[in-house]
């Protein structure tokens, strides 16, 4: 069972630069065809400073900081037992290639379901840009299946 003392725990802020090549490769892999994600000239012609970052790519910032491994280590969870339960984003400002984002992650809930067979860990993340503006908030629910 996961110790509920971790509810409220905040991790050190993670800084992540939105790299242009990474945006393009992410967009390409998901089959994106709109030019504002793939072609910088087209993005600029559309009035954007650089490539527009696809909306779910915000998820990649913490991953690059080995955020999953750290969470599992902190809560003593085996990676073989995890599944992604829910994910959500609230958007406030667009993010472009070249932006530098800070991710402030907090564990906000740990609940037990099915008599302990399933545990849910909820994290909320505030994401700000290099101008200190809130660009998005993310909510993540990880399911831990205890076999």
């Amino acid at each position, binding site marked *: 069972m996961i110790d509920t003392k971790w509810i409220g725990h905040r991790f050190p802020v993670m800084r992540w630069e939105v790299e242009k090549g990474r945006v393009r490769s992410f967009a390409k892999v*998901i089959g994106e065809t*709109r030019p504002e994600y793939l072609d910088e000239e087209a993005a600029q012609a559309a009035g954007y400073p650089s490539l527009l970052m696809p909306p*779910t790519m915000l*998820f990649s910032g913490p991953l690059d900081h080995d955020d*999953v491994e750290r969470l599992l280590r902190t809560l003593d969870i085996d990676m*073989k037992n995890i599944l*992604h339960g829910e994910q*959500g984003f609230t958007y406030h400002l667009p993010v472009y290639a070249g932006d530098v984002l800070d991710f402030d992650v907090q564990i906000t809930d740990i609940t037990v379901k099915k008599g302990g067979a399933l545990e849910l860990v909820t994290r909320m993340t505030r994401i700000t840009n290099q101008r200190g503006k809130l660009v998005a908030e993310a909510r993540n629910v990880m399911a831990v299946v205890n076999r």
Partner: protein
Amino acid sequence: MAVADLSTVKPGDFLPELRLPPVDRTLLALFAGASGDHVPLHIDTDFARRAGMPDVFAHGMLGMAWIARLITQWAPQCALRSYSVRFRAITHLGNEPHLSGKVAEVFVLNGERRARVEVQMANQYGEIKIQGEAIVALV
């Protein structure tokens, strides 16, 4: 493809569907690299089997990114106010993603006209894998 004329959006409208090729191992490896999601359940068959799974399976965030494509080919990304999903079932190798969405409600918040869009990803057998909703400004 041009985005829709959002001024005429009404409840019951459907988003143009997206049907994608079957999920294969190459795609999962490429998505692991591009997204930074290196959880081995998605890229290492030996690890997946030790975890009791028959094989590697698709990242939840790959499906969520596909549904985002469905939304942003209908409305510009700057109109997207929020987007959330629940991962209902595992997307296996060979599954053909079928993305669809429907306007459930049109409402006004803080003077802004918005649509609540119900979205989902199913496979070729009609099994629902991901369900969620997006709030899109109709401006």
